[in-house]
């Protein structure tokens, strides 16, 4: 009997090939969307983490409160001690102090008169210490367009676009005009040794990258830093661990009555990333649920068990003495079989697409041009263990739900009625 039913299933394209195609397509799209969303969150979080937020970030409470104004007068002091304490307590993480700063970069001519100048968004990193991972973390080597990375104090990098706009070349002298933490004017000369393209809209407009100690000196921030960032191994964010570290650190070091005492926050607490991550999680759920709904309806109509088409068959089977429960069960088995088959095929296709997007990505630089969000121009998908089975939820559920719907239609009718509806 099973073989008999299977033969029928295989021969009836409306019940086998068509639904398998529909399911496979739906499953593939679901997986692609899912992996793509994950990739989007992951990419955004990773980019943010590298450039700005870290996985955890330490600042003074006062600095944290208005951190978007880059209030370097409220920066951390005694950074060397803070860093060595953090390294001792959390050796698992990589810790790095940074200073963000704003200013004007001025390129003088031979007479010392301004030839070109423009505002810069500055990032001071530990570029020169032997064991610093900043260089590697920000992939400066890869982002380099012209010249080389700083090798000794006094050397800086700027965005390629910035250099082009100002018409300046590597090797030229540049003067940073900014303000010190005490409010007086800071003027410091540097040599431009290279240009960068990060592939991140806002960074590529007017970034300036300098070594930490140069900027500490220029801005009069001896042993100071705006923030200390902590990174988990392999740059993989771990929500629970990050929160645990932050809470533990704050419970010991954060003093409510001292604005200059340090506070630690996680990646999720910054730039709305926590909300973004939660939203994407919900969106992924909505996408999967939406596909279950749409596919159930499509399948119900394409004819896996399509009501009228099968009334005749079901009627005959019942008339010749097959029990209703047996017919019902065989229809559900059929749905599971088709659902599994379609899901497997769809998963393979979806994963192949997701893999391509993971490796190559899609270039969105047109859309991120004006954006100030730290988002990569290239969006990549991300394949996780869940990607392998997420497609089976809509694939299987949709077919089984579709069967249940049409099954109800068949079973609420008297057997005799099934024939009458065929005849008219």
């Amino acid at each position, binding site marked *: *009997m099973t073989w008999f039913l299977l033969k029928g299933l295989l021969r009836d394209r409306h019940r086998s090939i068509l639904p398998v195609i529909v399911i496979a397509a739906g499953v593939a799209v679901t997986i692609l969307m899912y992996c793509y969303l994950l990739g989007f969150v992951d990419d955004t979080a990773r980019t943010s983490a590298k450039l700005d937020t870290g996985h955890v970030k330490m600042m003074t409470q006062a600095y944290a409160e208005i951190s978007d104004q880059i209030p370097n007068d409220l920066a951390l002091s005694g950074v060397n001690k803070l860093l060595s304490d953090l390294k001792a307590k959390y050796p698992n993480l990589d810790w790095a102090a940074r200073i963000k700063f704003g200013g004007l970069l001025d390129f003088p001519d031979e007479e010392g008169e301004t030839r070109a100048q423009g505002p810069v968004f500055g990032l001071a990193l530990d570029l020169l210490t032997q064991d610093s991972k900043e260089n590697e973390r920000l992939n400066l080597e890869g982002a380099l367009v012209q010249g080389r990375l700083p090798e000794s104090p006094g050397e800086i990098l700027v965005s390629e676009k910035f250099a082009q706009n100002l018409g300046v070349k590597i090797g030229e002298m540049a003067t940073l005009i900014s303000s010190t933490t005490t409010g007086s004017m800071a003027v410091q000369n540097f040599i431009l040794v290279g240009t960068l393209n990060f592939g991140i809209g806002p960074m590529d407009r007017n970034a300036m990258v300098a070594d930490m100690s140069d900027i500490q000196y220029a801005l009069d921030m001896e042993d100071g830093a705006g923030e200390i960032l902590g990174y988990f191994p392999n740059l993989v964010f771990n929500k629970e661990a990050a929160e645990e570290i932050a809470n533990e650190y704050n419970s010991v070091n954060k003093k409510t009555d001292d604005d200059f005492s340090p506070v630690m926050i996680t990646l999720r607490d910054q730039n709305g990333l926590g909300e973004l991550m939660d939203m994407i999680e919900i969106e992924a759920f909505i996408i999967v649920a939406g596909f279950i709904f749409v596919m159930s309806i499509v399948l119900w109509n394409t004819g896996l068990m399509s009501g009228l088409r099968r009334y005749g068959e079901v*009627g005959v089977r019942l008339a*010749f003495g097959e029990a209703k429960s047996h017919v019902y069960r065989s229809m559900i088995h059929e749905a599971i079989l088709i659902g599994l088959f379609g899901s497997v095929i769809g998963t393979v296709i979806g994963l192949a697409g997701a893999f391509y997007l993971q490796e190559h990505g899609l270039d969105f630089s047109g859309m991120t041009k004006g954006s100030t969000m730290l988002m990569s121009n290239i969006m990549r998908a991300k394949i996780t263990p869940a990607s392998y089975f997420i497609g089976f939820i809509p694939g299987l559920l949709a077919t089984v739900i579709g069967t249940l719907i049409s099954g109800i239609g068949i079973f609420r009718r008297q*057997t005799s009625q099934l024939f009458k509806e065929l005849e008219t």
Partner: protein
Amino acid sequence: MGDGALITTKNLVKQYPIGGRKFTALKNINLTFETGEFTGLVGPSGSGKTTLLNIIGALDNPTEGHVIVMGQDTRELKHRQAARLRTEHLGFVFQTFNLLPVYTVFENVEFPLLLLEMSGADRKKAVLKALEWVDLSDKIKSRPAQLSGGECQRVAVARAMVKRPKIVLADEPTANLDAANSHNILETMFRLNKELNTTYIFATHDEKVIGYLRRKVTLTDGQVIEDVSTTPRYPTANEEMS
């Protein structure tokens, strides 16, 4: 068995809800059928023939009254038991043939036997024999779409007969057939009725079918208005011819 009739209907009433009202399709039907009958439920369209046939075949339930088939009251049967009754003792022939389109002639005829859990070899023997009865031995691998209407109905007869049921219920079996094919199918059933003592009950308003009957039950507006024995005309003539 005192009332050892094959099928008995007792005060059978069937009502269909139409809108908020009830439409009575069968009014107090009392009939008995004996083994080996070749009987027609005859009457104009809408007189209740199909309804009565479906209730006898346990495909539908009566609103009131009882149908006793081979000693079993169909109203008291659970789904499963009714299914069992049909598997073992009932065969159906429909106006629209209702062959399963994705299966071959052989497989269509084989289907009722699968429910009886027969061995493969026994099934094959029975199917080939049934196809011999209807003279379709050369079409076993064909699909219904490749057959003429007459051939389809012969497959349907083979399917109804393959398990040699006690009773075959045939609803307007000739309605979609031309005269030659109608006679062919009727002769086949008439012959099988004699050879295997199978009871045939038809629902029909076709004069050709009526010509083969040995008993004619006339329905009008859901009531039996006549129940008479008749002398079949056609098969006698045809038998003499061949």
